[in-house]
């Protein structure tokens, strides 16, 4: 779901060391507006399923939570919430069941591997992490297995911690978790993330280890690898935001709705601590620039994975300048290469190796110049670019 509803803005019960919202939190001069009717009105206008987000979404009072879930169920048949899990209580689980809420829990690992999700003191952090783990297990036991988001950083992958992380993921699989999302750490000037940064080589090593782990856990999917594979096969009708042509003025990958019903952008792009409102008009200046800009100048010119990657998330851009490609470029490139190799070995035809890739690029660039966009799936079908052979299911 690309609509994030943030009823309480970035208000949270914990203070993750690497939180990308710390800038806006520190710069806030007035409490955010809150109006349930306005939120519902904006959600109505957008007309799409939404995910309850934060800060921490479970700080919303129960009556309003239920009202939002009731609306989501009635309007879309489904709800979603992303939470750090520390505040989940039995009555929340009852709400999740009643209103068909898909729960995503952000956890970086067991015990001390989750310490960067700091709760103010060692004791409170221990408690918060344990509560999140307990809630996750309880949800699985209730047949409501959540998905998990794990942010990869030095605190959960360096040294022996990577082994612990992998073992823990296997444990989550045993509990019933089937979907995990992996995030690379976003380093900002406003938070304490610098010391946690992994190099591209380290990120790649970790991701390769997790990619090798996936087939040993039947049914478990790391969204990231699945999506990258589908991007290479031009099956991107549904893809997460980082693969979409996004810029911080109108983050089309993620559209925010704030507590007063205002429309906003994805918080990952608020690098200067200001929660800029979304522009009405979309543009593709970033993608057009990246396409033309040499690698040495922070661009993507000539990269065979550009159609899939598009410079990736502007919130992770080099030097914090959204006009440049992602600082994780080498990681993504390495992973794309790995998956490309796998696809070729399976007899598939990744778009990155297609003799008509340049033609597809030119077509997409032409669309962007007109202020339009198109999925690779639609574009390749329209151009008659040979689809990938039927292989493993996406």
């Amino acid at each position, binding site marked *: 779901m690309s609509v994030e509803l943030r009823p309480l803005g970035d208000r949270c019960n914990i203070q993750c060391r690497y939180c990308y919202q710390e*800038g806006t939190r520190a710069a806030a001069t007035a409490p955010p507006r809150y109006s349930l009717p306005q939120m519902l009105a904006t959600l109505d206008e957008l007309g799409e399923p939404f995910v309850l987000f934060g800060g921490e979404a479970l700080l919303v009072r129960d009556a309003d939570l239920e009202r939002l879930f009731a609306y989501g169920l009635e309007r879309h048949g489904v709800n979603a919430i992303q939470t750090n899990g520390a505040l989940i209580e039995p009555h929340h689980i009852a709400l999740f069941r009643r209103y068909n809420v898909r729960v995503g829990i952000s956890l970086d690992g067991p015990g001390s591997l989750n310490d960067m999700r700091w709760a103010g003191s060692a004791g409170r952090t221990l408690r918060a992490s344990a509560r999140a783990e307990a809630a996750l297990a309880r949800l699985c036991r209730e047949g409501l297995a959540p998905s998990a988001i794990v942010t990869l950083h030095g605190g959960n992958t360096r040294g022996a911690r990577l082994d612990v992380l992998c073992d823990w993921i296997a444990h989550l699989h045993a509990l019933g978790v089937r979907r995990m999302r992996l995030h690379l750490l976003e380093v900002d000037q406003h*938070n304490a993330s610098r*010391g*946690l940064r992994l190099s591209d080589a380290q990120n790649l090593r970790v991701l390769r280890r997790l990619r090798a782990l996936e087939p040993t856990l039947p049914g478990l999917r790391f969204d990231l690898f699945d999506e990258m594979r589908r991007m290479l096969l031009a099956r991107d009708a549904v893809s997460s935001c980082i693969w979409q042509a996004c810029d911080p003025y109108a983050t089309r990958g993620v559209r925010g709705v704030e507590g007063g019903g205002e429309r906003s952008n994805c918080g990952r792009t608020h690098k200067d601590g200001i929660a800029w409102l979304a522009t*009405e008009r979309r543009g593709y*200046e*970033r993608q057009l620039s990246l396409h033309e800009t040499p690698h040495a100048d922070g661009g993507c010119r000539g990269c065979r994975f550009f159609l899939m990657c598009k410079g990736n998330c502007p919130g992770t851009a080099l030097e914090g300048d959204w006009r440049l490609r992602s600082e994780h470029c080498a990681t993504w490139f390495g992973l794309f290469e790995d998956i490309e190799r796998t696809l070729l070995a399976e007899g598939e035809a990744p778009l990155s190796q297609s003799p008509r890739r340049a033609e597809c690029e030119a077509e997409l660039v032409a669309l962007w110049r007109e202020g339009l966009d198109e999925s690779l799936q639609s574009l390749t079908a329209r151009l008659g670019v040979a689809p990938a052979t039927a292989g493993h299911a996406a």
Partner: protein
Amino acid sequence: MSLDDAPRLLRLPLLVEADAQRLDVSAPRLAWAGESQRRLWAPRLAAIRAALLDIEFDDVAAGRVATTALECAPVQIAPLTARLRSLDLAAIPLGARVETGPATEDAPVPHYRLALTRRDGIDALVDALASGDLAASLRLAGYPDCCGAALTTALASGERLPLAIHAAGSARTSGGSRSSEACGLLQSLGLAAVPHIACSDRCAASRTLGAARLARGRAAGHDAAMGWLAEALAWPMRYSRRNGIAELHTPVLRLLADAGSRQPRLDYAPSGPSPRVPGADVTFVETTLDGEFDNPAAADYGFDSVHAWRTRQAEVVWEQSRRLRAAGGSLLDLACGDGYLLQLAEAETRRLQVFGLDTRHDQVARARRRLSHRADALAVGGPTRLRDGLAGCPVPVDVALLRPEDVVDLAATERAALLDSIFAAARCVIAYASDRALRRHGTLAQLLAAAGLVAETAPAAADISVVACRAG
């Protein structure tokens, strides 16, 4: 009033046909720095633009400047026509820009570009436009010589974006002092004191013209709008161009435009570089895991992995958190293992004094390391150890944690005696199950029954802990 309610003033030179000497006057993409800024400044900017439009019309009608240009939407044509007629001004079409997108509900909407002049200036304007005489166009548009020369040079070098042209000129110029009257960084939003593209924000000629124009505006009754314009032109601003994208940041709004030219890279801040918010100076200190996950006893306690064990212990505390917080007082774990559950219970409420017993020396040793401040409260032994006294542990203890699987396989009399001592030593006994116990007995209720216990209240299907009583 929105920014788009009034026609948008453009900056000449614009030519009818595609030509090298043409400015890019596309509207930039604009974002507000929050809802409160938008509510405050959107109406103000619209008022400023309307006032500047009035001033511009008056200037052309009075002959202070020979020509100007603007862009308007179809709905604005009728009122514009009436206005021009009242001032005896003529409009010459320069082309149109078609806009599509969400704002137009995806229907193409033309925006007409018009050059305006007095009737007696039509010939000169038409001649200048038709001949492509850049110098003539600039004269007609009222450019000071320096600004005209700077624009001519910029166009010849391939620059198209007025914002980029002004910013580059401002960054290059060192003589004189900067003035907001000459500032052109917001000109693409129609916000500038001068109608031309100033060669720099230090341009004396532009400053004079701008100050005069602001004064005329105030005299014409646009006092508030001119005040807001002066305030906006004094905002701290930061301009940058990189890889063909020009961006301007102010505390109220930011805008971006396709700069066309990709080089050179430029960063310009009229008021000096903004102080960068210092980053949090926290260094991640890599600590050892210190045996946190290498306890080999998980299987002995009924779990397939140390993670499963830890999760179960966390679940017990989660399920019983209200009871633990309400009870306060004392908690005794009769199979404390390495003390992780007791550590979580302590984290739940400071009012809880924790005690632990375990038959395994190695686990008690680990527990004493984990809970060094409670080392004396952790002892090797089974429940019968309570008879000998556990340092500081009250009898009865407020809450005792019991694993029914530890008594299931005892002979009936031995089990009964053990349970007697446990229930005598605790006001409340909470029973919880390991994975192995649940696999063996099916449910928590069945496990309790096998141990000669019942739940005080029937557990939910997903519960793994419950307050227990003696059966029968």
